[in-house]
């Protein structure tokens, strides 16, 4: 059996994206012994994911900063299980099981894109928007490739700008929201000068790329991979030949770990207090899991969580003021990119909704609840554990997501057998003592 490695920290941060990095550095600066664990190969999260072709990046700068502060970084390790009563998380790497003890825990598990099913969405090269960007950062050649970016949310613009800067021919950006809701969002940026500046830079980078509102993909076509897509724009359909469709409908917070630990949720997000502490004492949460709010809010929340988890209070007042302002922006964001009901009608009866178990829309539509559908069709029971089809069926059928069961991610059976393992002889002694 693979070995079990053990670590012990004052503050353990799960997730090395912006919120997690801000939390880790803040906690380390005020003297805490800090560890950061992340399932990706390197720090940075999605937004600061390093590029293979570049020696330095935001990610490598952060890595250097963590190193200088004495923060231990554990990458390529996925949290799979916990014993929260004993303040332990278990993580799995490709070769080992990690038992990580802590006094305080900060969850900075980020968000994922909401993917909505439409005919053809399962074809290779139909990807999440950030997913294609991550692939390109990881070395996928994109120069000269024709890409349509579609879905909803500000991520589409950032991805389009990135892809274009790397030589892609971005044929169009299709935003499902209406021009009106975007215009009111844009005018709201005036009260957020930083955001406005970013928006103007983006606009320059995107110059010449058609930006269509009221627009979304209705079908992807191809034999073994994507060849062309049909886009609906203002009610008219047109066909576009392309190599990639980068398509995501805004973001879904990753609340599974928080939920497994027993942290209370509110409106699908982790409920936190003024110090970013969840309903479970000693467990903090920062960034997207507390509500989709973007980079700036994630950094502020991370700092608050880091300082508070380390038991300090300096700067918290000032940070809270900045957090309030950033939260206002988050609320505007949510309103502007609200999904339109027409998107519920995109899948036809044969469209696969659960990609792990290939469960079609028609099979799901017969059921009354997520639990019933899971039981009868295995929807959401595959290796992604409903992380993709769960938010999709929540949107399509208004189904409540179910509870989270261990392991948090698919786990080697030997790891499950090593979690809280007590040899049988020892065990009978223990029970003997209890009697």
């Amino acid at each position, binding site marked *: 059996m693979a070995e079990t490695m053990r670590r012990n920290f004052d503050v353990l941060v799960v997730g090395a994206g912006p919120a997690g990095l801000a939390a880790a550095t803040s906690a380390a600066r005020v003297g805490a012994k800090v560890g950061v664990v992340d*399932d990706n190969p390197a720090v940075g999260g999605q937004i600061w994911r390093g590029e293979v072709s570049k020696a330095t990046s935001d990610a490598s700068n952060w890595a250097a900063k963590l190193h200088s502060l004495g923060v231990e970084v554990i990458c390529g390790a996925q949290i799979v299980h916990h014993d929260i009563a004993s303040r332990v998380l278990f993580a799995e790497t490709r070769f080992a099981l990690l038992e990580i003890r802590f006094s305080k825990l900060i969850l900075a598990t980020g968000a994922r894109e909401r993917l909505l099913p439409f005919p053809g969405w399962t074809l*290779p090269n139909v990807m999440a928007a*950030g*997913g294609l960007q991550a692939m390109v950062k990881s070395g996928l050649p994109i120069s000269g490739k024709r890409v349509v970016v579609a879905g909803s949310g500000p991520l589409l613009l950032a991805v389009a700008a990135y892809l274009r800067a790397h030589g892609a021919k971005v044929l169009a950006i299709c935003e499902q929201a209406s021009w009106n809701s975007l215009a009111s969002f844009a005018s709201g940026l005036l009260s957020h000068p930083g955001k406005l500046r970013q928006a103007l830079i983006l606009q320059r980078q995107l110059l010449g790329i058609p930006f269509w509102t009221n627009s979304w993909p209705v079908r992807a076509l191809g034999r073994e991979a994507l060849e062309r897509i049909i886009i609906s724009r203002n009610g008219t359909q047109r066909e576009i030949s392309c190599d990639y469709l980068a398509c995501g409908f805004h973001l879904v917070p990753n609340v599974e770990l928080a939920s497994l630990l027993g942290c209370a949720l509110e409106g699908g997000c982790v409920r936190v207090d003024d110090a970013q502490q969840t309903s479970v004492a000693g467990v903090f949460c920062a960034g997207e899991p507390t509500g989709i709010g973007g980079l700036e809010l994630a950094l502020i929340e991370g700092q608050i969580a880091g300082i508070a988890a380390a038991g300090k209070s300096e700067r918290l007042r000032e940070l809270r003021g900045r957090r309030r302002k950033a939260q206002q922006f988050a609320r505007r964001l949510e309103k502007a990119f609200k999904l339109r009901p027409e998107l519920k009608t995109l899948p036809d009866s044969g469209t696969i909704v659960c*990609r792990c178990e290939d469960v079609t829309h028609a099979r799901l539509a017969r059921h009354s609840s997520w639990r019933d559908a899971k039981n009868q069709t295995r929807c959401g029971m595959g290796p992604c554990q409903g992380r993709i089809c769960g938010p999709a069926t929540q949107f399509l059928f208004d189904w409540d997501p179910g509870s989270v069961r261990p392991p948090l991610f698919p786990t080697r059976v030997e790891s499950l057998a090593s979690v809280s393992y007590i040899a049988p002889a020892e065990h009978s002694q223990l029970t003997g003592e209890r009697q």
Partner: protein
Amino acid sequence: MPDQVQLRVDGKAVTVPAGATVAVAVALAAGFCRRSITGEPRGPVCGMGICFECRVMINGEPHCRSCQILAEANMDVRTNG
């Protein structure tokens, strides 16, 4: 560290930049990662280890998420694993 890494995808040699993921190597060599349970070809979607569409067999180990694993010299990668 060398600039390039050579590995095999379904027996075919592929060269990727050092630091590239196995998913990139598979995209270049095979175009898709796995067949779904009803036989559809599938490739990477989320790029961040959540969707499990990019699963391949690496050095005999099935169900590996190729987007989360860096390509290593002489790795033996099989699609549909």
